[in-house]
């Protein structure tokens, strides 16, 4: 990409940040509020300030999961356990009953560091495991979590099955009239979320990020290049846990409540599904994954009202979506966005005229994944698109 090609991209990012910055004020404008209400009633897409705050929480968590799974290639099915660790650490620190009232920022940071320590602790044995074995080990983590949280000797802090309730956050008094409580909550979650995302983006383009990617693509190769495999594998776990912990801390602060039921096995799996759908090894992918994770419940709920069978087929729906994504868009929604962003209208028109589009679609049939499912294409199809097929969506 040349610098000219990058300009619209930069503008798009700045527009996104600006939109997020002013979002809580759009809401106070009646026309926009009306639009949002109708959007919610028709599509189930709830864009209230609180929901967008929830999005910011999951953005941090999913960025962390993407560092681990997308960049360093290690699969964690128990990521919610780390989120829970962060959530509980923050909630215990913030709980007025414990008289350990600390500033929110400290609690969230403590949550991140605590989860990070746990992440490193898991990362060490994880060195011996890879692929499915690692996934099963992390699955054990989340399955055992409810029992651990309900243990009698720690129930005094964790509140057992009832969880911990936190007081509602209020905007500081010097901001009276400028920022109301909802907006305060929004900014105090969105700000760290954006910072964490930018940090991750930078980090993944640095030495650490390259080491992760090298590890993922070939462990032996990475070792030959001088990457300390043990160090970087545990670092990936620790870093990802740091994100999960901060996300969990923000979750506790935003929801003002944590309980064993807030973090489950299904949630953990859903996180992984979201990352795959959003786009592995891509920050844009994490953002899209967080949007999917936050807003799909409402949309599917609305769909259930129209087609009742959707509810019973919810997981089948995820499964089909996942397979379709893998086959047609292995880079996830982020890959699609990147490809669309590269299209120029004139190119599209000329491609359509010359029949390239039709050929590109028929070439899908020859993709290795499709061939594996449907068998080799019949002979009457002319072999085409040798050049177009490979590599176009491979670069990040």
């Amino acid at each position, binding site marked *: 990409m040349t610098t000219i090609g990058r300009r619209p991209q930069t503008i798009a990012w700045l527009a996104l940040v600006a939109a997020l910055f002013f979002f809580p004020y759009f809401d106070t404008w009646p026309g926009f509020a009306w639009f949002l209400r109708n959007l919610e009633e028709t599509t189930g897409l709830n864009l209230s300030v609180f929901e967008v705050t929830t999005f910011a929480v999951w953005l941090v968590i999913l960025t962390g999961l993407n560092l681990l799974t997308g960049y360093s290639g290690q699969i964690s099915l128990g990521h919610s356990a780390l989120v829970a660790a962060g959530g509980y650490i923050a909630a215990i620190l913030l709980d007025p009953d414990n008289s350990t009232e600390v500033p929110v920022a400290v609690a969230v940071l403590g949550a991140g560091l605590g989860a990070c320590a746990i992440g490193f602790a898991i990362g060490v044995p994880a060195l011996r495991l890879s692929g499915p074995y690692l996934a099963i080990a992390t699955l054990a983590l989340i399955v055992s979590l409810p029992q651990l949280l309900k243990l009698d000797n720690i129930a005094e802090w964790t509140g057992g099955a009832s*969880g911990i*309730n936190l007081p509602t956050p209020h905007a500081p008094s010097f901001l009276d009239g400028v920022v109301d409580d909802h907006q305060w909550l929004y900014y105090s979650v969105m700000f760290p979320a954006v910072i964490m995302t930018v940090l991750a983006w930078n980090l993944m383009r640095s030495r650490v990020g390259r080491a992760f990617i090298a590890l993922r693509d070939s462990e032996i190769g990475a070792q030959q290049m001088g990457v300390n495999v043990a160090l970087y594998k545990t670092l990936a776990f620790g870093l990802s846990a740091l994100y999960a912990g901060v996300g969990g801390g923000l979750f506790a602060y935003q929801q003002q*409540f944590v309980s064993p039921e807030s973090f489950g096995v299904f949630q953990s799996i859903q996180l992984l599904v979201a990352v795959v759908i959003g786009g592995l090894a891509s920050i844009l992918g994490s953002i899209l994954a967080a949007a999917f994770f936050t807003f799909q419940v409402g949309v599917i709920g609305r769909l*259930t009202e129209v087609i009742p069978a959707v509810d019973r087929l919810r997981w089948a729906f995820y499964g089909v979506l996942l397979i379709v994504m893998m086959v047609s868009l292995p880079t996830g929604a982020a890959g699609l966005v990147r490809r669309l962003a590269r299209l120029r209208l004139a190119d599209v028109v000329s491609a359509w005229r010359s029949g390239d589009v039709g050929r590109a679609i028929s070439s899908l049939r020859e993709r290795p994944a499709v061939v594996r499912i449907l068998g080799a294409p019949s002979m009457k199809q002319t072999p085409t698109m040798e050049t177009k097929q490979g590599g176009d969506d491979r670069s*990040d």
Partner: protein
Amino acid sequence: MIRSKESIFRLLLLLVAAVGLVAFAACGDDEEDGGNGADGTPAGTPTAGDDLSSIPEDTTGITATEILLGSHMPLSGAAAALYGNQIVPGMQAYIDYINDVEGGVNGRKIRLQVEDDTYDPSRTNSVVRTLVNQDGIFALLSGLGTAQHSAVFDFLKEEQVPDLFTATGATKFTDPITRTAFGYNPNYIQEGDAIGKYIARTHPSAKLGLIIQNDDFGRDGEKGIRQGIEGSDVEVVTVETYEAVSTDLTAQVQNVRNAGADVLAFYALPLQAGSIISTAHEDLAWDVPIYATGVVADPSTIQLAGEANAQGVITTAYLRPLNQGDDPGVIEHQRIMAQYQPEATVANLSIYGHSVAELAVEVLKAAGPNLNRRSVIEAAESIRDFTCSLCLGPINLGPTDHRSIETFSFARAEGASWVVFGDLVSYETTE
């Protein structure tokens, strides 16, 4: 920059395997609408005497022709079939009936907006905020689930939104008393206490074995039973626990038997109850008297246990069970359901939904034409001796008592249904 196709497919396969594994284990991991509690003695202290002036005379959600109520229930996901999809038609049918026959309450029709929280506390948080901030509900009615409602309890309290008749047995919502919040279900400590006293009466020197679910629901039940047998010669010989995700309780029953118990009591959900009863009475051919929490008082439990095995099992009931075919309240419920919700099934939980809606309508009527958030709280606290058409005992509420149902009865499995017997047991504090 992308993982090879090979490993993506492996990831996919793994996800499918994990989902399958978990779905297998997760059948029925949902706690009955209840659980928790602090102490058994039903005595609350009002925070501000009889003075309600701190609650604003807010009329949000009320127009000249309409009252907007909201609720959070699981309408999709695993818990939906258990709760939301049965309770909501019951509530809706009675509200439609009142709107239709009586033209609503004081000329205002009631509109109930139920939002789906999928039984996930963070979803509850989100949907209830939308109900309050965006839809502008007047009050929340029958929010379901202990953890779920916990997530929004403080928010509703702070916004001074009346939080009426929460669908859980948790004492934490009614003790200490929050002026805007009222509970509905009897709590498990009171119920356990009654079961304990009953065992002490009928088996004076019993060796009692307990099987409880490892959460607040089970723990409260155990606490109640221990409280009930205090001072008698009944001795608890063992307490076996299980996690809500497990469904086969053969090992626990075996352990109870090996510990030398001669009476078995349990706090489990219907699915596990079926396993306990059939294991004891059929697989082990162990003729032990069984006492169960009222949570299992549903015909499905008898089906799960096998009709022959379930005979004589004793439980508690606080609403009229469906089978009592000659009961006028139940017949009326069936008629209303057939007219207003013809597609929904009539079940013990639709009776539950109907009964809570009836109490809400009673409160709205008592609040009079000048309806606002303060007057509705005042009206709720004035409810005395109200026996709804489906209740077994009267409901009393007051400034120091925000618990609705505090009387219940024992029931015994006879044939394919539960039959209520004996006198009412009352834990009522308000005279």
